[in-house]
């Protein structure tokens, strides 16, 4: 395990912000820490980086305990905090030089390493500019370049796309995805699409607790009952009655349009009734022009897990 959190707990005064959170991240994984605002994402990340001490529990990075060997831990992480704080009066290249020195990048390779990170994150066009004059997108790139400077084992990025416009968001996501080929990545986000796009594994955190830990696909598979949409021509009532009898179908909603009827078949989880529906239609000689298994999106899973409501909503 490259990153290990064991029952991490943090109180702010009497307020329990993170409640015994445990997880492990292996080398090469790209993990999203997903949760609504105020769920404890930033606090968890700060405890992992050693910026905040845990009230209870322990964390280790690359085998170094965060509390016992904080300086060792910091050598193994590249961290970009929420809102990406930078020194506005410095020039981008100068800032990266300062950071490389702090991160102990040896003097003889420093220049090359900085040039490499500038290239990788596309900071090149603004490397000589004062950070205060940069657009938010470029600042984000400077922050990412900084996180990469020490060639860390783990990149920890707290809300890396917050406050960016859609194009910048896309660029940043692509950049993170390309970085994940060489680094283990932990990102936090409250944007579901982002986790679904970038991450191979998602930890959903809510009110300080991990409520789910799986691949985005598996999460949507196992959390919500599936549904099949079928479009069949013919007498709606007759077809609906027949469909309701198919093994596994729990509920049928019909919508009639001209000759074609759209049926939504709610089923139990892990049940695929498409084949049965096809045979039923073939048996009766009904024309069938659509048969789709709709998946619950991560958004539904998230909604359900973090609000604690049932799965009655439209899948």
């Amino acid at each position, binding site marked *: 395990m490259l990153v290990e959190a064991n029952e991490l707990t943090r109180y702010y005064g009497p307020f329990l912000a993170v409640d015994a959170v445990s997880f492990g991240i292996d080398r090469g994984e790209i993990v999203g820490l997903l949760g609504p605002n105020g769920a404890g994402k930033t606090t968890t990340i*700060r405890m992992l*980086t*050693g*910026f*905040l*001490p845990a009230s209870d529990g322990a964390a280790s990075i690359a085998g170094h305990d965060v509390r016992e060997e904080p*300086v*060792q831990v*910091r*050598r193994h*992480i590249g*961290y*970009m*905090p929420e*809102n990406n*704080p*930078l*020194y*506005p*009066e*410095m020039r981008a290249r*100068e800032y990266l030089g*300062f*950071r490389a*020195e*702090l*991160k*102990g990048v040896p003097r003889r390779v420093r220049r090359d390493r900085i040039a490499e990170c500038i290239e990788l994150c596309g900071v090149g066009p603004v490397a000589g500019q004062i950070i205060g004059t940069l657009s938010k997108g470029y600042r984000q790139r400077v922050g990412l370049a*900084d996180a990469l400077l020490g060639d860390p084992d783990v990149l920890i990025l707290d809300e890396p796309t917050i406050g960016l416009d859609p194009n910048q968001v896309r660029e940043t996501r692509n950049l993170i995805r390309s970085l994940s080929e060489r680094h283990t990545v932990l990102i936090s986000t409250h944007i579901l699409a982002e986790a679904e796009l970038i991450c191979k594994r998602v930890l959903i955190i809510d009110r300080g607790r991990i409520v789910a830990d799986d691949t985005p696909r598996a999460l949507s598979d196992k959390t919500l009952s599936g549904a099949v949409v079928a479009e069949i021509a013919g007498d709606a009532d007759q077809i609906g009655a027949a469909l309701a009898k198919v093994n596994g179908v729990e509920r049928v909603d019909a919508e009639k349009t001209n000759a074609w009827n759209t049926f939504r078949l709610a089923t139990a989880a892990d049940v695929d009734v498409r084949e049965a529906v096809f045979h039923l239609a073939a048996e009766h000689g009904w024309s069938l022009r659509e048969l789709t298994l709709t998946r619950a999106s991560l958004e539904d899973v998230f909604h359900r897990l973090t609000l604690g409501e049932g799965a009655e909503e439209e899948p």
Partner: protein
Amino acid sequence: MVNVPAITKRELNTYFLSPIAYVVLTGFALAHGIMFSMALRPPLDPNNAAQWALYVPIFLLVPAMPLLTMRLLSEETNRGTIETLMTTPVSETEVVLGKFVGAFIFAVVMFLPVLGELIFLRFVGPMDAGPLLSGFLGVFLLTGQFIAIGLFCSALTRIQIASSITSFVLLLGLYFLWFLARDSAGSLARLLRYLCPPMHYADFLKGVVDTRHLAYFALTTAAFLFLTAKALELRKWR
């Protein structure tokens, strides 16, 4: 301690980009020049004038140093850069020392006009080197102590103005101990006098380098730097 130079370098660069630092630089040069010119009356004794030139900082440093030190840590906290700073492999002590040295070097630059005045006096007539050297030693010891106090106040708050007011009041308080000492007696009076910086400063101007005074400045400066590092560590527990 390998990271101290990096932090010092950045701190110095920031000083030379900061408007408030230039205001202090100019203000100090002006105020010191005006007060120095008051000593330029016939009959002009270069040694007396030099002593006066080195005595004047005792007034000017009280408003100047809080303004120079207020941003050192408050700004990092306010901008959030303390988080990127403290998640690199640097220790609290390195951060505190790096900033201390950076501010100190800037203060040395601030004293350049004083050096200019002394060079001017050298053309007026011969001067004793001893009191000049010990005087400068005293000025720098006092400056170091004030920076340590300012740095500590800067670690306490994210608001720069609050930090500068706190250190200004603290410095004034240390000066006023002299009045308290005057009205009290016995060991209390001795203690109050001992804590009062100007009481330790005067001897340096006369050319006396007393280890008691050296120890006083070294101890108080180190104590405030230590407290600053502790305050930085404690910040985590808030």
